[in-house]
C-alpha cells in the first residue's frame, strides 16, 4: 500500500465578537420554493426526524412545494411510502427509489440518487434531518451538486438565512446562502417539533426512474452488519424524559439502577462520553456535541460533571435536574434543580418514592 494522507486543520483562534441583538432580516423570496426531503424510514414507517424536516421546510416560505424522497427495497419501502403520503398535509409528492442498492442506506448510491432526482426536479432546497443518515449522505450529495451545505440548522430565518450552533453550542452563527445551486441543509429535529395533528396528508406517490443512475460506485462499499443493543426504552432522540448516567456510576453493573429509574419514569437512558469510553454502556446512548442532541421535557443527570461537550447536547431541555456529590460540578450551573449528594443513595430513594405509572 502506497501512501496515507491525513488531513488535519489547525483550530482557528476565536476572532469574532458577540453581538447581543438578533437581527431578523426578511429575505422576501420572489423565487418559488420547492423542497426535497431526504426521508428515513424504518419498519414501514417514516421516522419522526424526517417529519421534523418537513416542519423545517414549511418555515422556508409560504409558497413551498414539498416532496419526500424514500429509497430502499421490498414491502417495507411501499409501506413507508404510504406512510409518507399521509404524514403531513404540506407534502405534495412522495418519490420512491426501489432498488437493492438502497437496502442499507449507503452514502454512495444515495448521493447519486439525490443528484439524479435534483437534475430532474430542480428543487430550490434539499433537506435532511441531522441524524447519522443525514450527516453521512447530505454533504456527499452537496459536493456532487457543487453546493456548500449548511448543517445542523436550529432556526430558519428566511429561505436563505439560517442559524446553526458552533463551538459546541457556545455560540450561534447566522449564515446566508448565496449560491445558485440548491440550498442544502440538515436540520436538528429537536428544533423543529412535530405537532400531533400532522398526520393528515394526501400526497401522490411515484417511482423514480433509476435507469440512468451511475452504477460505478455501487459495490465499492458493502454493508457487513450492525450491532445495536435492543431496548424497551423509548428512543433517546424524542423521549419526553431522559435519565443519564455519567462517570459517577462507576460500572456497567451500576447502570442497571439508571435503567430501573428510567423504567419507572418511562424514560430513555442516556450517557456521557466518559461512561461510554469506560465501557459502561454502548455508544448509541451518548448525549453531547458529538453524540445525540436531546431536548426532553425532563433531563436528569446522575454522576455527570457537566462538561461543555455534554451540555451541548442538552441545552434545549425544558427542565434539567442534576445529582452529583461535588457541589462545584459545572452541571449545577445549568440545572434547574440540583441535589448535592451521593447518587447511590438518591437513585434508589427516587425509585422508591416516585409515583407509580398508571
Amino acid at each position: 500500500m502506497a501512501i496515507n494522507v491525513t488531513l488535519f486543520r489547525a483550530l482557528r483562534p476565536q476572532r469574532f465578537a458577540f453581538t447581543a441583538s438578533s437581527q431578523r432580516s426578511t429575505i422576501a423570496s420572489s423565487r418559488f420554493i420547492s423542497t426535497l426531503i431526504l426521508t428515513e424510514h424504518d419498519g414501514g414507517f417514516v421516522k419522526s426526524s424526517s417529519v421534523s424536516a418537513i416542519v423545517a421546510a414549511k418555515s422556508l416560505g409560504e409558497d413551498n412545494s414539498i416532496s419526500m424522497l424514500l429509497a430502499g427495497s421490498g414491502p417495507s419501502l411501499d409501506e413507508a411510502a404510504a406512510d409518507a403520503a399521509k404524514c403531513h398535509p404540506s407534502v405534495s409528492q412522495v418519490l420512491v427509489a426501489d432498488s437493492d442498492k438502497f437496502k442499507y442506506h449507503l452514502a454512495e448510491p444515495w448521493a447519486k440518487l439525490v443528484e439524479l432526482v435534483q437534475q430532474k426536479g430542480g428543487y430550490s432546497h434539499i433537506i435532511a434531518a441531522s441524524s447519522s443518515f443525514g450527516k453521512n449522505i447530505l454533504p456527499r450529495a452537496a459536493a456532487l451538486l457543487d453546493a456548500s451545505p449548511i448543517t445542523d440548522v436550529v432556526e430558519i430565518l428566511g429561505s436563505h438565512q439560517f442559524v446553526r450552533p458552533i463551538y459546541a453550542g457556545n455560540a450561534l452563527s447566522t449564515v446566508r446562502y448565496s449560491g445558485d445551486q440548491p440550498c442544502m441543509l440538515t436540520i436538528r429535529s429537536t428544533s423543529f417539533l412535530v405537532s400531533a395533528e400532522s398526520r393528515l396528508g394526501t400526497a401522490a406517490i411515484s417511482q423514480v426512474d433509476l435507469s440512468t443512475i451511475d452504477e460505478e460506485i455501487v459495490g465499492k462499499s458493502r454493508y457487513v452488519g450492525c450491532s445495536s443493543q435492543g431496548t424497551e426504552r423509548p428512543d433517546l432522540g424524542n423521549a419526553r424524559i431522559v435519565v443519564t448516567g455519567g462517570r459517577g456510576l462507576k460500572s456497567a453493573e451500576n447502570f442497571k439502577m439508571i435503567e430501573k429509574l428510567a423504567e419507572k419514569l418511562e424514560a430513555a437512558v442516556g450517557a456521557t462520553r466518559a461512561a461510554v469510553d469506560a465501557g459502561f454502556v454502548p455508544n448509541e446512548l451518548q448525549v453531547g456535541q458529538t453524540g445525540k442532541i436531546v431536548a426532553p421535557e425532563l433531563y436528569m443527570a446522575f454522576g455527570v460533571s457537566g462538561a461543555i461537550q455534554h451540555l451541548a447536547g442538552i441545552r434545549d431541555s425544558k427542565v434539567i435536574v442534576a445529582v452529583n456529590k461535588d457541589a462545584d460540578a459545572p452541571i449545577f450551573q445549568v440545572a434547574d434543580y440540583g441535589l448535592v449528594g451521593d447518587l447511590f443513595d438518591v437513585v434508589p430513594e427516587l425509585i422508591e418514592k416516585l409515583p407509580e405509572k398508571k
Partner: protein
Amino acid sequence: MSMNPFCEIALEEAIRIKESGLATEVVAVSVGPAQCVDTIRTGLAMGADRGIHVEWKGEGLGLGPLNVAKVLRALVELEEPRLLILGKQAIDDDCNQTGQMVAGLLNWPQGTFASKVVLDKEKQTATVDREVDGGLETLCLDLPAVITTDLRLNLPRYATLPNIMKAKSKPINKVTFEDLKVKVKSDIEVAQVTEPPKRKAGLILSSVDELIDKLKNEARVI
C-alpha cells in the same frame, strides 16, 4: 494554534497503520494561514513523514468544507494515496462535512464516524466500524477510500522530545490554490455570531422528597 482533536485521532490512526507495515508513508496536510505550519510540525513529531501546507490567507470563520474538499481532491490526484483519513468534525465550526464531500468529489467510498478500522492488504479493503444513531454499523470499503474518525478510534500519542527534534528536518511543502488550480467558491456568508440564551440559575434542593415535589408541582413534568 492547536490541532483539532479529531484530526489528532486521524493522524494517530495513519501512523499506526504505517507502523503495522500496511502503509509506506504518512503525509500530513493542512489548509489555512501560516500558523498551520506549527500544527503540521506537531504532526511530523507524532510520526508523519512529510507535510503539505496549502496556504489560505482569508479572514473569518475559514474557507468552508467545499473548498477544502476541492483542495484535497487536487492533492489526491497528485499524490495518489490509497487512504485519506480526516477527523469527523472540527470543534470550532462543528460542520462534519469535509470527509463526505471529498469522498463525493473523488467518487471514493466513505467510512464516516469510524470507531475501528481494519485494513486488508491483500484484498485492498478497509473494514470500518461506524458509530451511528442505532449503535455500530460495519462497512467494507474497497480502497482507495475516505475515512473520518470518531472519538473512540484511538488515543493519540504525545510527541516525544527526540521526535520533536527529528521533525524539524522533515519537509513541509507549501502549495497555493493557484498551484492546485482550485477556484474558491464563496456561497456562504456569516451574517453574525451571537450568544445563545443563557439558562437561568436553578435551585439547590435538600432532599429527594423536595425534588419530587418540585418536579410534580412546580415544573409539572412528572
